[in-house]
């Protein structure tokens, strides 16, 4: 946290931090410009402008013939299905790991007051550390890398997409679940504890009711992200709309790309709407 001196610029105690930060940032940014081979001229030379014109002319009007639209029903449905099943697996992975990764459940705080330090570290801290490490690996490897590996393991189709979303999002859900559980107000728990409730009682009647709305809300929010991810995973052969978008783009069928984007927009919008309505219901 910032010291009070940093928070009030009028204070006479000046910190060098902002200046150091600005210099470091400018330096990193300048080096990054070179490493990323940024060259704005490329955007405005004749060839690029020609390509933009070609793209726009090709994309308008979007392709709306019934045959093409009929062909999209299947991948569109698949995109939703992958996101839903991916979330199911993510919850199945994330919930138990998230519980283990919650220090207030495994080894710290009022649930463990009567346990010796040694037993706490042996029985609680070890699974806690393992669960946190596993969650970190799950979420730090991007979905598409998981998808590429699962395509290798179980073959092309929607199943590897489901597994990829399940593992990557399981890692995110587990981390956030544990953060939600740790942020629960401890006072109701202490009251339950003082009233003689056992551990299970404290968890079931104190911890979970406080945490559940946030858990459900965050899971639904992640579903909104999963539908976008599920569309992307098609690029690596894991089913859904992405596969079709890449195909149309590579064949320079820009009118198909525009239609596909519109369908994607519709799907994402529908999921956002449903999820938003349920979230409004769950968290007031």
């Amino acid at each position, binding site marked *: *946290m*910032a010291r009070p001196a*940093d928070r009030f610029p009028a204070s006479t105690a000046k910190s060098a*931090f902002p200046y150091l*930060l600005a210099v470091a940032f400018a330096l*990193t*940014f300048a*080096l*990054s*410009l070179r*490493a*990323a*081979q*940024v*060259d704005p001229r*490329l*955007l405005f030379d004749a060839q*690029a402008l020609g*390509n*933009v014109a070609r*793209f726009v002319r090709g994309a308008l009007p979007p392709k709306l013939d019934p045959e093409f639209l009929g062909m999209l029903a299947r991948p569109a449905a*698949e995109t*939703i*299905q*992958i996101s*839903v*099943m991916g979330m199911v697996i993510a919850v199945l992975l994330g919930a138990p790991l998230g519980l283990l990764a919650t220090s207030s459940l495994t080894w710290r705080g009022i649930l463990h007051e009567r346990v010796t330090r040694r037993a706490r570290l042996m029985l609680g801290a070890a699974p806690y550390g393992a669960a946190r490490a596993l969650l970190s*690996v799950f979420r*730090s*490897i*991007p979905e*598409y*890398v998981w998808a*590429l*590996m699962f395509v*290798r*393991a*179980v073959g092309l*189709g*929607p*199943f590897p*997409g*489901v597994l990829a979303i399940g593992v990557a999002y399981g890692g995110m859900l587990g981390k956030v679940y544990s953060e939600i559980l740790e942020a629960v107000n401890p006072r109701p728990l202490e009251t339950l504890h003082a009233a003689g409730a056992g551990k299970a009682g404290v968890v079931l009647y104190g911890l979970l009711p406080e945490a559940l709305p946030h858990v459900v809300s965050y899971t639904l929010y992640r579903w909104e992200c999963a539908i*976008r991810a599920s*569309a*992307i995973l098609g*690029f*690596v052969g894991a*089913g859904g709309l992405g596969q079709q*978008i*890449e195909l149309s*783009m590579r064949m320079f069928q820009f009118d198909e790309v525009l239609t596909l*984007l519109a369908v*994607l*927009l519709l799907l*994402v919008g529908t999921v956002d709407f449903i999820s938003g*309505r*349920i979230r*409004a*219901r769950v968290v007031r």
Partner: protein
Amino acid sequence: MSAVALSRRRWSPWLIVAGLGALVGWSYHGTRVDMGALLSVEGLRQIGVYVARLFPPDLSAGALRDAAIAAVETFAISLVGSVLAACIAFPLALGATRTILYHGVLYEGQRLGRAPKALRLGVYAASKTVLAVLRTVPEIVWALIFVFVVGLGPFPGVLALGVHTGGVLGKLFGEVLEDVDPRPLEALQSTGASRLRIVLYGILPQAIPQFVSYALYRWEVNIRAAAILGLVGAGGLGQRVYVAISLFLEHQLLTLILAIYVMVTLVDALSAWLRARVL
């Protein structure tokens, strides 16, 4: 928004549970998920064999150098892309903020005429629409488009991240601008400050720490996205990952995965530290 939500009937919990249940059943059927086969002895053995094949990571000088170059490129794409995103988002967010354009404390004293008001409504609608289009098209599709426009390499990756994230940040920035505490603005107004001054000294100082915080958060998202864009030829680690998987270079693949892991973790830590300093 809340008034609308309240006036409509809320969905019953049973309807929600039944609906979600049906959705899961339909999805289970459609994705041909075969958990039995995956978790069978044979399935688990195959996964074990595959994971074992990844080890040990290729730590030869050549592989490490290659991974380091790709990691630097990915980092650069994410950083420049995020800065570009903030530059795109800021002006569009100003245009997408009703309280700056035509509504609220700033306009309490003097009403706008009909023509200026219509013009400002137009600016608002246009900014909102542009932001929506920018953020609705996924990064990877933007990357495909920019690869088509400017050719292969990390630069189209930067543009793709900048444009998509610009749309996301613009929406978030706009929400921040509309949600600032109105009391300092009223205080400024009562001293006779002009609209420009109120925006400069009342609204922006409240909003900028939030802007920085959101931009840092999106940087964390973008470092992951930058590792994906290589898939369509937009440079960075993604391209190498794709090659390594396609050519069955499992040991190199693990090196690259470790590089992604290390970089993502570092950026997360750096961003969290900076956010704690800013807010």
